């Protein structure tokens, strides 16, 4: 018998109380009228102690204007999700993901905030990553034994074998090799998903990478009678990205296209659109069903197709690619008109400025420094024209190289953040006070000015530096980041 209306009400109120998500209901004035057990637990309050509290007291960053905005949003679209900081009873900050819903009642309307501790999710993700990484490592040793045993028989080290035995063992060997690739990919994806992959973002030309990747597949394409070509706009397509990771993504996409294309061509096209650099890998292969366009990015999902090369992938390539794009604040998606219509894999990378990339990289470092009441200095080294002349930025590349080398010589610490811009280099130095930063900057500049003397003269350039120290300049993290590149007067 289905639940009666009363039974259903009992059921929903049980769920609302017992769910592990915290739930707060508040009116448009910000007063809390209901909180479930989990809300009290997550915020370290006694049950019921949250009733009639002000939302502004529970969320220090929630200003009345913001609360008003939130109401506007849920009234127009019904729901709204965001990440936010709530404050627990003891004054501790709790980082949460919130979904706000409009709850219309007979005589009033409330905002229902369903929230979840982000730290808890991250902790679980770390546990999972650790588990996957332990399992993978444990699998490596027995794999070595299996592989070595088989290859000794295959090589005849253990006596002669016949063709049928050779065939069976060759199959076993390719199975083991595939297992090795899966284990490596699993390790890779678990690292990417837990955010443990430090991206080495540098200013690079995506066209060059696309051509390199195409070059590495050219032989295979020719052997299979496929035409593989790259189309790029004139000039360079500069993005801030991790070279190895972008190569990995493109290798993945082009490799996939080759596997699922029997005849015709594969084309890599690069272009800019709406301030983003886009890359499309198009093929005349078997195509993708509309229902599968999103599914293929899930782990171990292979859309049930068999490759023409007979090769089996690991089922993780596209998940890894998506993870890499997300770390770069980019996107990846698939397009196809269906079976037999070919497919198109697309990705887009934001065209960020060097200053934005530096700020992105600096934010977590700065946060950690602020938490332990530490200090941090950033130095901006900049090549500026002596007079009002314009500088040909393309001629600065070799000068920036020399400058970077000279910085690395003085400060050979890999964990220090360094971003090369078109005319400048930004460095962040942890636990470095202003005086020490100035000493380093002076050393670097003196060396670079000597080494580059003639080039600077020819181009009419001077090398300057500016230092900003936290917390000396701006004690507040956000203020520090905002004013990082503004000139001091």
């Amino acid at each position, binding site marked *: 018998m289905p639940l009666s209306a009363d039974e259903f009400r009992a059921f929903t109120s049980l769920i609302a109380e017992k769910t592990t998500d915290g739930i707060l209901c508040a009116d448009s004035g910000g007063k809390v009228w209901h909180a479930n057990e989990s809300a009290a637990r997550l915020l370290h309050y006694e049950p019921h102690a949250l009733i009639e509290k002000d939302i502004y007291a529970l969320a220090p960053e929630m200003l009345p204007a913001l609360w008003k905005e939130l109401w506007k949003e849920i009234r127009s679209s019904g729901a709204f999700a965001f990440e936010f900081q709530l404050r627990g009873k003891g004054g501790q900050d709790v980082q949460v993901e919130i979904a706000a819903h409009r709850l219309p009642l007979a005589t009033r309307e409330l905002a229902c905030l369903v929230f979840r501790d982000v730290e808890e999710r991250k902790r679980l993700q770390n546990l999972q990553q650790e588990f996957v990484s332990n399992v993978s490592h444990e699998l*490596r*040793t027995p*794999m*070595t*034994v299996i592989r*070595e045993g088989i*290859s*000794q028989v295959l090589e005849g*080290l253990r006596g002669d074998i016949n063709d049928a035995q050779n065939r069976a063992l060759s199959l076993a060997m390719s199975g083991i090799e595939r297992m*090795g690739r899966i284990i490596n990919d699993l390790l890779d994806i678990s690292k990417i998903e837990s955010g443990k992959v430090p991206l080495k973002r540098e200013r690079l030309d995506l066209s060059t990478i696309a051509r390199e990747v195409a070059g590495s597949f050219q032989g295979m394409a020719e052997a299979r009678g496929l035409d593989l070509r790259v189309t790029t706009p004139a000039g360079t397509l500069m993005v801030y990205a991790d070279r190895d990771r972008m190569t990995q993504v493109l290798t993945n996409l082009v490799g996939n296209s080759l596997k699922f294309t029997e005849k015709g061509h594969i084309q890599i096209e690069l272009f800019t659109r709406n301030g983003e650099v886009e890359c499309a890998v198009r093929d005349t292969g078997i195509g993708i069903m509309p229902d599968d366009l999103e599914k293929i990015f899930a782990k171990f999902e292979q859309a049930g197709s068999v490759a023409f090369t007979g090769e089996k992938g690991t089922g993780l390539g596209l998940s890894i690619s998506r993870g890499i794009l997300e770390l770069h604040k980019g996107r990846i998606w698939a397009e196809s008109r269906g079976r037999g219509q070919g497919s198109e894999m697309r990705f887009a990378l934001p065209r960020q400025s060097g200053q934005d990339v530096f700020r992105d990289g600096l934010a977590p470092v700065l946060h950690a420094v602020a938490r332990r009441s530490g200090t941090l200095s950033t130095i901006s080294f900049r090549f500026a024209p002596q007079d009002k002349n314009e500088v040909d930025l393309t001629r600065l590349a070799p000068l920036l190289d020399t400058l970077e080398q000279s910085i690395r010589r003085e400060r050979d610490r890999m964990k220090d953040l360094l971003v090369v811009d078109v005319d400048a280099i930004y460095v962040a130095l942890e636990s470095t006070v202003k005086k020490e930063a100035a000493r380093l900057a002076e050393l670097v500049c003196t060396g670079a000015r000597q080494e580059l003397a003639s080039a600077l003269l020819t181009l009419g350039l001077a090398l300057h530096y500016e230092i900003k120290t936290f917390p000396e300049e701006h004690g507040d993290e956000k203020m520090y980041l905002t004013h990082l590149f503004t000139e001091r007067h």
Partner: protein
Amino acid sequence: MSDVPTPQGCRLLLVDDDPMIVELLTLRLQKHGYEVRTARDGEEGYEAAKAFNPQIIVCDVVMPRVDGLTFCRRLRAEKNNVPFLFLTAKGQPREKVEVLSAGADDYLVKPFDPQELAARLTAILRAGRNKTL
């Protein structure tokens, strides 16, 4: 070119606690011409290093009693510069730094290609020969 070192008759000490790995690698290395002696952990390995006086050592990292890193450091502390190659299971940057700074000459990450092991051993022998010349 009689100076090019060959594995022929070269005394090799293999230290690993996994009897399967030991059995398989012993056969493989013997086929390459090495004279192989084996040990099950760093303690046994240390004894064998004294008695057998190997010209090259292949060693696991994680082992009971005395691990590979301790074994390697102990040899280096006694100014024993025998070429030393580690077999590691993890292959993470931190571990690579660890094995090399313990005094190893090279390392291979499991599962490794046996051909690569043979090639690396020859390369280490060659480098060692050049150093002493």
